């Protein structure tokens, strides 16, 4: 059995019709599934210049090629469309159970176009797709929506639900898409697209079995991989983590990082295990990227001691096919909530100089329920606090609310205003750049974003790779697409011998050199990221290193192909190049997507872990573009690269099996 279905579902909300489209085998060879499949379709099907919140934009929900194949860490689903936040190619990535359910419904992806004239949700089961009225669901938060729909469509098995909350309904440009009780495909503002299309939710209840071409080999590979994850390694208590961070800060040299060491930390604490250490190390931004661990010192950061967070955890949360279980379910106000992640904790503590863990839990829960990106929300509030401090925003703008560093109550109030789009929240709900443009007075200079999207809580002044990837990535402002430490962890040189192997120890200053080696590892990061996004692999799994997580071997065993790791990396390069071509077609000046200079150390910090450090971003971007085969001055993929990658024509597809969707009105006794 192939691990892909060879079929996608098209849903036209304007006409209320659903159509199946068969996908040629060659498309999977060239683009895999997941984001690769999405870009191969959307580049052709979203018209140039389409309004991101209009009927022509197409929102894709795609499952990774390896999902359901017997591999591990491969339960990621991805949403993709033209981003309303950045105007570029947009995508977001999430775990939970949606990815396998897309395939269990018989599809590799669901592509939604048009605009409905009233709220609807898409229901798909073994009998096919159906659009249903969602008027009664409109206004509900994501958790209420999911719980209501699960009761409403109750059958033999529980469906998987992806939905928006009030943020998406109100077209907040930093709205995400929620599934599995608040897991969030948060970035690129894709929740606003569902809101613009009046698509409240996608409810999937398929039961078709999934598999692979060579299940025996998949089992052998997965068993070996699992052993690297589940071995119990004793770890020090949480209070030792800042000492680890401080040690890394003081060391004169930088070490090649081994992801095998971070996996036990993720298994014990989840991503929150790194928050306090990262402040000490210089990875977490402080005070809207203008401070350091000298400002947010250990007495303050003790509020986010990972053991304090772990004490609230009731049980571990595993996404589909994940042996790690970095997620956690915590008790919260008589109910349950997902454990806050590193990014959320950093964004609402160190970035704002706050120290209230209860407030973080409250904010995390509210943003998950609203369906709003915690990274962008935190970054935007950090901008607002600095704007208040500088007199750009006054109490006249905030209806009397004072915005001071370290005031968690004010941050919580701003979150509520942003979700409700009330008062100053009306402006902040679209991100820091939009707000800065409104208020002016030079406040764009401290809107820490790239291309309009707030960058995540990892400091490029510690790892210049973050600056580079956030700037050259076709979805700007992203942190998961690459950095120098990720390259260490991915250990790609063990499978692709042409790639450079970093030294075990090297001088810290060497990280800041813009040279051919940096370009080579950055391009390898990009290609591998797109490859694993095509496969549906979780980044934390990838951090094990490809000699421990056999993604290349899984791909061959699952599909029956015989491709080399280098050939798979070319697939990743192809996906990355088409994503860039999407932006070129939109007429975007690719140089304009560079991150805010402050985050790149221009000017450099005067004290703290990253004092005196500046990233040579222009040179790094030029080298990256040249190395991947794009114009080094403009970032436009060269004709020879396009030809070499065989990018045109992009798809070889034939529409078949037209099916008319039947719309049913929900029965009134459900209280809708």
């Amino acid at each position, binding site marked *: 059995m192939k691990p892909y279905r060879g079929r996608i579902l098209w849903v036209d909300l304007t006409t209320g019709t659903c159509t199946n489209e068969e996908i040629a085998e060659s498309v999977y060879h060239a683009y895999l599934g997941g984001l690769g499949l999405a870009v191969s379709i959307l580049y052709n099907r979203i018209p140039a210049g389409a309004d991101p919140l209009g009927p022509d934009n197409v929102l894709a929900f795609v499952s990774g090629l390896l999902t*359901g194949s*017997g*591999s*591990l860490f491969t339960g990621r689903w991805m949403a993709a469309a033209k981003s309303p936040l950045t105007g570029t190619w947009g995508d977001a990535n999430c775990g939970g*159970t949606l990815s*396998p*359910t897309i395939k*269990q419904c018989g599809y590799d992806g669901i592509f939604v176009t048009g605009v409905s004239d009233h709220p609807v949700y898409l229901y798909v*089961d*073994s*009998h096919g797709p159906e659009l249903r009225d969602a008027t009664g669901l409109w206004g509900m938060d994501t958790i209420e929506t999911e719980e209501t729909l699960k009761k409403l469509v109750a059958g*033999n*098995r*529980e469906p998987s639900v992806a939905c928006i909350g009030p943020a998406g309904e109100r077209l907040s440009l930093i709205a995400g898409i929620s599934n599995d009780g608040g897991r969030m495909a948060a970035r690129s503002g894709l929740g606003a697209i569902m809101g613009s299309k009046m698509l409240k939710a996608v409810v999937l209840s398929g*039961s*078709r*079995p*999934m*598999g692979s071409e060579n*299940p025996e080999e*998949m*089992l052998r590979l*997965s*068993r070996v991989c*699992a052993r690297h*994850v*589940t071995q119990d390694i004793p770890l020090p208590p949480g209070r030792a983590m800042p000492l680890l961070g401080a040690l890394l800060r003081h060391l004169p040299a930088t070490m090649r990082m081994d992801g095998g060491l971070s996996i036990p930390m993720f298994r014990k604490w989840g991503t929150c295990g790194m928050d306090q250490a990262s402040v000490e190390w210089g990875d977490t931004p402080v005070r809207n990227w203008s401070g350091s661990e000298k400002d947010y010192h250990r007495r303050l950061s003790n509020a986010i001691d990972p053991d304090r967070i772990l004490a609230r*955890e009731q*049980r*571990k949360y*595993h*996404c*589909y*096919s*994940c*042996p790690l*279980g970095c997620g956690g379910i915590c008790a919260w106000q008589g109910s349950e909530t997902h454990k806050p992640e590193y990014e959320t904790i950093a964004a609402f503590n160190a970035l704002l100089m706050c120290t209230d863990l209860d407030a973080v839990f409250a904010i995390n829960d509210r943003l998950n329920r609203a369906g709003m990106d915690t990274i962008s929300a935190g970054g935007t509030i950090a901008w607002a606090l600095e704007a208040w401090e500088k007199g750009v925003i006054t109490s006249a703008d905030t209806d009397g609310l004072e915005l001071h560093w370290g005031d968690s109550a004010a941050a919580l109030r701003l979150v509520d205003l942003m979700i409700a789009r009330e008062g100053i929240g009306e402006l902040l709900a679209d991100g820091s750049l939009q707000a800065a443009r409104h208020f002016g007075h030079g406040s764009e200079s401290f809107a820490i974003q790239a291309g309009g999207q707030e960058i995540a809580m990892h400091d490029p002044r510690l790892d210049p790779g973050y600056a580079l990837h956030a700037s050259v990535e076709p979805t700007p402002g992203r942190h998961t697409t690459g950095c120098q430490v990720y390259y260490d962890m991915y250990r790609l040189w063990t499978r692709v011998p042409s790639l450079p192997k970093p030294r075990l120890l090297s001088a810290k200053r060497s990280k800041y050199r813009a040279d051919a080696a940096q370009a080579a590892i950055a391009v390898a990061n990009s290609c591998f990221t797109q490859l694993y996004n095509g496969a549906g692999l979780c980044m934390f799994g990838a951090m094990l290193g490809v000699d421990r997580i056999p993604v290349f071997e899984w791909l061959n065993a699952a599909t029956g192909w015989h491709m080399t790791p280098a050939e798979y990396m070319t697939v990743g390069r192809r996906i990355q190049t088409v994503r860039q071509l999407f932006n070129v077609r939109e007429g975007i000046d690719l140089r304009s997507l560079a991150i805010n200079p402050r985050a790149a150390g221009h000017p450099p910090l005067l004290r703290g872990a990253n004092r005196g450090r500046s990233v040579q971003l222009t040179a790094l971007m030029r080298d990256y573009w040249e190395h991947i085969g794009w114009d080094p001055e403009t970032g436009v993929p060269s004709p020879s690269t396009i030809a070499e990658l065989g990018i045109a024509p992009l798809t070889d597809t034939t529409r078949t099996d037209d099916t008319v969707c039947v719309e049913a009105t929900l029965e009134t006794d459900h209280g809708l």
Partner: protein
Amino acid sequence: MAYNIDKKCIGCGLCVRVCPVTAIRGQLHAQHTVDAAVCIECGVCGRVCPASAIQDATGSTCARLKHEDWPQPDMDDTLCVSCIACIQACPVGCLGLGRPGPRDPHARPILKMPDRCIGCGFCYGACPVGAITMK
């Protein structure tokens, strides 16, 4: 390929009642049919058919089995990695997570509703680490 019902069908309707995806249609006392586009090949129809009228996707006639003889999943917790692939694969929702232990917060899947299990083995096929046997 999907399951098929032949002329030996007596139209008793047992298969309709057990099919987890409502893929079977037919009038009482008349030959039933399987909707090939809907059938997930779980095999439960074949296990309940009193007339040996059902063939699997390879054309082999399915043998009737007493309900107590239907195979059920047995999880090996020493191999299980809590990845929930089995729970996700189950077409009847009979699996769920057990309670996490005091020293291991990673809850393991268990057969929560044995009476509901149809013995399809989808969980067995979905387990990435071979922690499930059908007994």
